[in-house]
């Protein structure tokens, strides 16, 4: 039996934090993660804008389970397990669509868009004990929505969503508040696999340390577009303090030097959008005050909603989710979130920024894929047992440090060990100065 204690070295006294590499290679670890994390936590499913009109539906797997979500004729969004209550066939077999009823092709049982069983061919062939009202489509035990983000949990006893989100809530607000008429998922998604353990993408997505060395060609490209002083600015952009948000959530924040669609102009947004961005900025200040407007508009952030939702609120807003299918394989889906009222010219720039950096055909994400696949390949050497995540443990950590990665790992360790609550932040200890180099 695997002892999770053998997987982490957390030694604040000496400023050392290490993760055993078997955490990324062992199928026993993945089995425990399924049982103690993915079967227990709140998990991101979708954004409510994805099914705008009655009858709209989409299917999507969560933690290996086939689900679909649908807006009923009554306007309510419901989530269903994608399996016929009769003999099990998938009910929803299109990726998306609009329907009044869904019919199982196997025996033609028919369900309305609120999940009720409304048609059973030759129903008289069943006994009087057969109760059609009990045979509607089933939902996951818990479904809840926060600011348009829909989460499910397969754990009926999970704590409510808002306390679960802890400090991440404030950062979801920073995203949702950018829209005046609500956010929407832009049509189209990026679906790709990475031959690496899922936790390596958590690390990569929160890691300010890799940005300069790994993404050199991207920064050369944007410098070439006239973002003056970018290379110097990149040097200092990642010196903001990192934040740990409780329950494994964390955020890496940095100076949004490349601009932000909400609302900091840079050459990446084109001269034609200078005025509209300035007007949005002025409205932000009116709506939220100068300080919150500055936080929303000047700072870029990569937010982890534990365990596996990333909201990258930067030169665009990327929503990224990823699921392990084996210790060394994950499936990633990414979407773009934009204010419903966004002007077409600015939306075009947002999408352009997305595909240049965050898309798998861009100038940065392919290198992240390469980096974490390379780590996974390196683990096969076996002779080095531990990965080193100690950076900045002895000081007030900045974005380039690994404090936010340690927060994830401590919560992960807490779940694998069956602990009720864990402190995920670095403890403040007395001899920090003595540990400085």
């Amino acid at each position: 039996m695997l002892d999770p204690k053998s997987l982490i070295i957390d030694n604040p006294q000496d400023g050392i934090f290490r993760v055993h590499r078997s955490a990324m290679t062992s199928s026993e670890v993945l089995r425990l993660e399924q049982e103690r994390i993915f079967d227990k936590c709140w998990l991101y499913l979708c954004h409510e804008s994805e099914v705008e009109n009655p009858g709209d539906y989409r299917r999507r797997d969560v933690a290996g389970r086939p689900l679909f979500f649908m807006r009923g004729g009554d306007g309510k969004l419901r989530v269903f397990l994608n399996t016929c209550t009769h003999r099990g066939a998938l009910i929803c077999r299109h990726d998306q669509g609009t329907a009044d009823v869904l019919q199982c092709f196997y025996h033609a049982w028919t369900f309305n868009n609120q999940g009720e069983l409304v048609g059973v061919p030759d129903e008289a062939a069943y006994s009087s004990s057969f109760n059609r009202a009990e045979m509607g489509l089933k939902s996951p035990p818990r479904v809840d929505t926060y600011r348009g983000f829909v989460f499910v949990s397969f754990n009926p006893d999970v704590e409510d969503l808002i306390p679960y989100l802890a400090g991440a809530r404030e950062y979801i607000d920073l995203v949702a508040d950018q829209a005046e008429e609500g956010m929407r998922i832009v049509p189209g998604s990026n679906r790709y696999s990475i031959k690496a353990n899922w936790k390596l993408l958590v690390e990569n997505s929160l890691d300010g340390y890799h940005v300069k060395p790994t993404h050199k060609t991207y920064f050369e490209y944007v410098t070439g577009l006239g973002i003056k002083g970018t290379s110097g600015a990149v040097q200092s952009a990642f010196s903001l303090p990192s934040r740990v948000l409780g329950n494994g959530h964390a955020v890496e924040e940095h100076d949004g030097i490349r601009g932000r669609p909400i609302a900091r102009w840079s050459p990446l947004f084109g001269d034609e959008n200078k005025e509209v961005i300035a007007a949005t900025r002025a409205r932000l200040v009116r709506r939220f005050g100068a300080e919150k407007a500055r936080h929303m508009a000047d700072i870029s952030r990569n937010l982890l909603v534990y365990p596996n939702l990333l909201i990258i609120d930067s030169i665009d807003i990327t929503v990224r989710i990823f699921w392990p299918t084996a210790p060394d394989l994950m499936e990633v889906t990414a979407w773009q979130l934009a204010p419903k009222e966004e002007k077409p010219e600015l939306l075009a720039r947002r999408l352009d920024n997305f595909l240049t950096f965050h898309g798998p055909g861009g100038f940065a994400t392919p290198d992240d894929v390469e980096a974490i696949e390379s780590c996974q390949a390196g683990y096969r050497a076996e002779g080095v047992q531990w990965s080193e995540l100690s950076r900045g443990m002895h000081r007030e950590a900045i974005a380039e440090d690994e404090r936010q990665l340690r927060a994830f790992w401590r919560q992960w360790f807490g779940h694998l060990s069956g602990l009720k609550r864990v402190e995920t932040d670095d403890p403040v200890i007395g001899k920090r100065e003595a540990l400085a180099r």
Partner: protein
Amino acid sequence: MAQADPSKNDGSLRTLRETVEDFLYQEAALLDSWRLDEWLGLFTADGRYVVPTTDLPDGDPQKHMVFIDDDMVRLRARVERLKSRHGHREYPSSRTRHFISNVRIQVEAGAIVATSSFLVYRFRMAESSPYVGWYEHRLKEVDGELKIRHKKAVLDMEALREHGAVSIIL
């Protein structure tokens, strides 16, 4: 029996087909031999290269997510990146082979529109990943030579499952 005689080129559709197919094969050869600067030279100054996402094959880059939407500035930067030792997904470079078939040609308002099926194999780090789909090449004759004004590569796969990225030029 009638023989094709190049000296009697009368601009018939068969000759156009030969010209277009040769052009597509030449483009594939440049990509497979990583002669990327020469490949860039196949485009007009206002050329464009687009790859839609797997779930929205007719996506419009202005309104929808796409994988790639390169004007010539970004396409040049893409080539520079592919030649750089800092383009990590393609350093060291993969081996590729572009197969093209099912070529169909239409002439629309003076522009040549060629659609074709492609199979692009990529081999690297003991892995292989096939990209399968169809091309639309919008071609224009400039100084007696064909040039690409618009190249779209539409993928048939449901996801970039074995690929992880679109790191090569399709």
